């Protein structure tokens, strides 16, 4: 694969994208293992216990999405700033340091797994807090790599040109990195622990990540649909206002039951009920745009995944989020398969989709194609089936988990009094087990989708280049 025709930032982006895809595959594989352990509890027990397979599953997800974001920003950096990237060498160094750190963390998760209850374990093996299990040394490494990344972005925009998108993006990255610090300390007080832990998790996915993909979407609409800069910038500001206006205090929906005072009921209920509003506004605006200027996109797979993003974000975060966000019902759904159902649809729908769209935008340039339409892709069955299978798989898993979660909130929480016995009464209920079985079925559909996706990304638009070059050779 020759990358010489890409600009420096784009070459760096391709590296990040490749690792992102590898980790995405790892995420799915470990998701399958965790899912199997629900049905066959003895499977790998003693070797890779559920807590290990699950930790790798969700950490691979967080890390591949971060790689996807970093790659996407590097991808658009030189075009948006209209100048060359400032620290290409430094950026490369950052990439290799981060990737080595991630590799070591994963190997330690898999082979050392756990440790005694001392500070060494937390610094070098496992921190034992969901999503941010990475040991402290890796946290520090991640922060340093993020600083390099941030320097590259801010310095390149400063040297070249600041735009509205550039400004929002840069400030958002400061917030995103700053919030991570809130998870980097130890306290025995588990209420305080979880108070700050939610700053990382919630303020990432429901505030800073949303704005980051808002920037990507703004840029993508400009590039793929030709919407003017002024419009996308204004809408980006509108989105920031609505998103942060609802999402920052929406964090209250995690402060109902962790020891925090009762006034969080009202704050969390009210503001998180507002969180779907920006998502509705975005869908409407997208329809307006495509109605006003008839879309003449030149990258069909990317466009399809951007549409999947708009819908996925709306359903996963907006609809699924709202259904369990009021304390009156969250009391029963909190910490059940309900949360897992929402988590799957939201992370896939809001974030996996748009990063995949960015992969396809990159693939078009890497393969040197003027467009990714029927002319160059032929029937395009691979990307179409990958799109269909991945979305069907995740939606199927989401519905299966929803049914299990519904049953669990009933049997364990409402009837069983939430005790140990109530918990297991729910776990052996036929609805629950069938939900878990269907989750596996759709997990396999998802897996088929990812196999096709990887195959497609490796091959899409290639053959035509070969043909073209043959043609040019004979001509010359």
């Amino acid at each position, binding site marked *: 694969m020759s990358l010489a025709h890409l600009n420096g930032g784009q070459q760096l982006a391709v590296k990040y994208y490749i690792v992102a895809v590898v980790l995405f595959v790892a995420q799915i594989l470990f998701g399958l293992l*965790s899912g199997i352990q629900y049905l066959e509890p003895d499977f790998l027990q003693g070797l890779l216990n559920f*807590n290990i397979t*699950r930790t790798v599953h969700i950490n691979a997800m967080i890390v591949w999405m971060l790689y996807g974001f970093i790659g996407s920003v590097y991808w658009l950096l030189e075009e948006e700033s209209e100048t060359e990237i400032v620290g290409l060498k430094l950026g490369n160094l950052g990439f290799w340091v981060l990737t080595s750190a991630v590799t070591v963390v994963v190997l330690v998760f898999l082979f050392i797994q756990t440790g005694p*209850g001392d500070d060494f374990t937390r610094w070098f093996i496992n921190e034992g807090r969901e999503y941010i299990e990475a040991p402290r040394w890796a946290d520090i490494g991640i922060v340093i790599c993020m600083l390099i990344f941030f320097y590259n972005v801010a310095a390149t925009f400063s040297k070249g040109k600041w735009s509205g998108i550039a400004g929002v993006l840069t400030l958002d990255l400061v917030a995103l990195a700053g919030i991570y610090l809130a998870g980097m300390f130890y306290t025995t007080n588990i209420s305080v622990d979880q108070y700050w832990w939610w700053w990382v998790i919630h303020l990432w996915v429901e505030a800073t990540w949303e704005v980051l993909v808002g920037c990507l979407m703004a840029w993508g609409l400009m590039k793929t649909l030709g919407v003017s800069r002024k419009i996308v910038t204004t809408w980006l500001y509108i989105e920031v206002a609505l998103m*942060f206006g609802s999402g920052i205090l929406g964090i209250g929906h995690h402060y109902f039951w962790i*020891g925090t005072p009762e006034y969080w009921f009202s704050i969390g209920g009210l503001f998180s009920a507002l969180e779907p509003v920006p998502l509705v506004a975005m869908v409407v605006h997208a329809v307006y745009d495509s109605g006003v200027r008839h879309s003449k996109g030149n990258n069909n797979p990317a466009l399809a995944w951007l549409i999947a993003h708009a819908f996925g974000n709306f359903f996963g975060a907006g609809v699924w989020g709202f259904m369990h966000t009021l304390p009156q019902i969250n009391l029963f759904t909190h910490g059940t398969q309900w949360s897992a159902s929402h988590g799957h649809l939201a992370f896939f729908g809001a974030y996996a989709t748009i990063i995949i769209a960015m992969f396809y935008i990159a693939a078009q340039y890497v393969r040197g194609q003027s467009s990714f339409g029927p002319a160059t892709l032929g029937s395009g069955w691979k990307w179409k089936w990958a799109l269909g299978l991945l979305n069907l798989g995740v939606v199927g898993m989401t519905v299966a988990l929803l049914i299990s979660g519904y049953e669990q909130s009933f049997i364990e929480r409402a009837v069983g009094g939430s005790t140990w016995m109530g918990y*297991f009464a729910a776990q*052996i209920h036929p609805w629950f087990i069938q939900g878990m079985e269907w989750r596996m079925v759709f997990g396999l559909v998802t897996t088929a989708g990812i196999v096709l996706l990887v195959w497609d990304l490796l091959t899409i638009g290639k053959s035509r280049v070969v043909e073209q070059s043959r043609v040019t050779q004979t001509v010359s």
Partner: protein
Amino acid sequence: MSSNIPWWSSETFWKKTAIWVTGFMFLVLIALTVDTLPQISVGSERVPAYSVINKHISYEFNDERNFQVPVIGGDDPLFGKMLSEEEAEALVTHGKKITQGRNCMGCHTLLGNGSYFAPDLTKAWLDPAWSSEGEREQMMIDFLMHPQDNARSFGSGRTMPDLNISEEEARAVIAFLKWMSSIDTNGFPYSFTVIDKEG
């Protein structure tokens, strides 16, 4: 040219709005954090001091608040030994660190957050699965040290893996669990059945 852009849809208006809204919401969150943190500091009404493990803890319905709340009773020292505030803190801290080092949250939820493969541990200390208050401490030690031999998974076949927890570690974890059960969680978990006093 720009004269026909209504002010409420201009780029500058929304830029300013975005900045002010974000700044304002963030300041409110900071203010609420400043108000909340003292209310959940150890030794507060909602999050009792670590020495609460010297006391009897139960979970009773409160008519005024319309849900169950932890009730701290008379002396009931854990493993029969009264601890000073410092000793209690050291023991609970060790227990919490063990739960992180063994990645308990990879299977269980604590205060409802974590994974859904195994029961919630928020009120594990009060769970009727430990037969009765008299037998509880020994049963918990046995279970944590040898979870495979003492499995109680009610027909699901799902058992806790052996995490090489020593007796001394088990005691620390139990201290942490007992302390956690005293936190006022606004009635979560709901309609919880509390362990019997006698078997």
